[in-house]
């Protein structure tokens, strides 16, 4: 183990350069993030991930955000175990009817200020599962959504750009005031 750790000291880090925040996401978030939130939260966000019935593809790419290449923690973004510790809910899936209550309770358990990011094509409007007897159809049909990130699943870079836009909005709203 010591050898492995020692070697890591001398190799170049894998972490890639931060991408620019996504423009479309910036516009979508224009009204969402308030000044008060910025003052209270500083420049970091705690994220609680909720799978509201996805195929698990989005979860795999959300996991990738924590690897050495994307290293989402360097931006002050971290995943937490409880909605009570969260500022952001990252929700995947078309919202199955069996998950509707759990999603609502998780949202209600998240203290204000909070934002909701709907990840993936299914989370937007039910995607390829829309119309099924078992599916509500998109996260916004159940809770208010501040940002949508499209893809099936979205690549980690796309998610990162969306999350950076969320941080950016928090920052610039403070400047505007």
């Amino acid at each position: 183990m010591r050898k492995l750790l020692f070697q890591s000291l001398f190799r170049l880090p894998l972490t890639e350069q931060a991408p620019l925040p996504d423009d479309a996401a910036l516009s979508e978030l224009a009204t969402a993030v308030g000044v008060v939130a910025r003052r209270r939260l500083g420049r970091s966000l705690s994220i609680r991930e909720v799978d509201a019935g996805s195929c698990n593809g989005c979860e795999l790419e959300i996991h990738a955000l924590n690897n050495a290449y994307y290293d989402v923690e360097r931006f002050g973004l971290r995943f937490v175990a409880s909605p009570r510790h969260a500022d952001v809910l990252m929700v995947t899936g078309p919202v199955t009817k069996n998950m509707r209550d759990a999603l609502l309770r998780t949202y209600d358990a998240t203290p204000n200020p909070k934002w909701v990011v709907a990840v993936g094509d299914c989370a937007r409007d039910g995607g390829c599962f829309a119309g099924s007897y078992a599916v509500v159809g998109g996260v916004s049909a159940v809770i208010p959504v501040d940002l949508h990130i499209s893809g099936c699943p979205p690549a980690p870079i796309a998610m990162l750009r969306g999350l950076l836009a969320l941080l950016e909005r928090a920052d610039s709203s403070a400047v505007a005031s």
Partner: protein
Amino acid sequence: MTSLIDLMQEGRKVESHGPWPRVVVDAPAWNLAVKQLAQGHWRLLGLWGEPASVHMAIGDEQSAEIAVVSLDCPDGNYPSVGLHHPPALRLERTVNDLFGLTALGLPDPRPWLDHDHWGVCFPLAGRIDVPEEAAPYRFLPVDGGGMHQIAVGPVHAGIIEPGHFRFTASGETVVRLEQRLGYTHKGIEGLMRGAALTRAAQLAGRVSGDSTAAYAYAFSRAAEAALDLDVPDRAVWLRALLAELERLANHLGDIGAICNDASFALIHAHCSMLRERVLRAADTAFGHRLMRDVIVPGGVARDLGAQGAKAIRALLDNIRLRFPTLVELYDNTASLQDRTVDTGILKPALARQYAAGGYIGRASGRSFDARKALAYPPYDRLRFEVPVLSEGDVNARVWIRVREIEQSLSLIDQILDQLPEGPLANAIGPRPGTREGMAIVEGFRGDILVWLRLRDGVVERCHLRDPSWFQWPLLEAVIEGNIVADFPLCNKSFNCSYSGHDI
């Protein structure tokens, strides 16, 4: 002892069903099959319903025969298989949820996937009833002093799919675990009804995101069996390449995640890096990190170019360079071995009874691997071994993955060396009439079974059976006697699919 062939004589053979036979039997023959399953002579590969009939896919491990046995249910019921053969219990509860068919004598009549939120009853049956107020779900009763319950989920700690786990613990020791699943049920088999082949293939690839290639592979092979359609050689080999890349990515990620659940984050960090490299090579080669929508009925949708082949070769070199150190570290870290050895033991007899597939079965003495046992092309022309252990603990399930990674690296090398030139897909012409097909493909967590019926080229009924159906129940058995803190370790070493199971 009866052989499957003998049973096949008892019924009416269904024409246009391939590649294995399907017979419609009467109740006595059905009961004979149930007896053979219960006595362990045959294994249950799947059990699914239709509005007025029920089907079982059965395998004979000795003779390597496979068949589908069907029973018509004019009265809306059939003799329960689960009454004598526990692996069928949850399958029969599901058949009831979806079709309203009653398994006579079923010891556990509680709904399984139906949580009383759909707004309809028996959604895939000929008739749809408005549901009456259902009683709340009753968990198994607990009797005795000094015990407490821990309820976890459906939303639970990590970035993970939803499911409910009800522990009964005495101090730190788990006395019982009872699962409740179905939270990610999307009604996929309902959406498949009446779907064109392209749409159905897309849905199949979205049943379980980590197995998108394997599911598309199984669905395509089932459709091709039904249509009697050949696949060009190049596509046959590329499909195996996609499946092996998917196996690599999942096994690498899982080994890291299992270590992470024992708080050993170093291996997780390094394994995540290797997994990321697999996904990036897959993206370069096939245009999608998870290789979704690449395998289609008739062949493949994307070709492997020189750049893609180069990226994959570089990937293999990199894994061969970096992975052995991580394995050595895993083996030499006493505190980690202390967590994984002798934890979560699955007894070989249970693995055999449930015909548990994948690394779960193979870590508990069951050597079945569909690539070897069924030798679907191109695996009949590839050299590889199937590693088997019998300790059945978390450590064994890690080692099976390590060995399978080594096998997959070798398989990918062989595929790249022998990849023939040629077209990527055969066109699916008009195929009138009713045709049925079935396929079994080895996904990374076990054998995936797909059965479908096409009518005039459109899907009339498609059943997709995730390997997890025969693995989830076993998790309840292995956690017993272990401490609560070892549950994440056991759960991750199993890595069953929620979405694949819930369909």
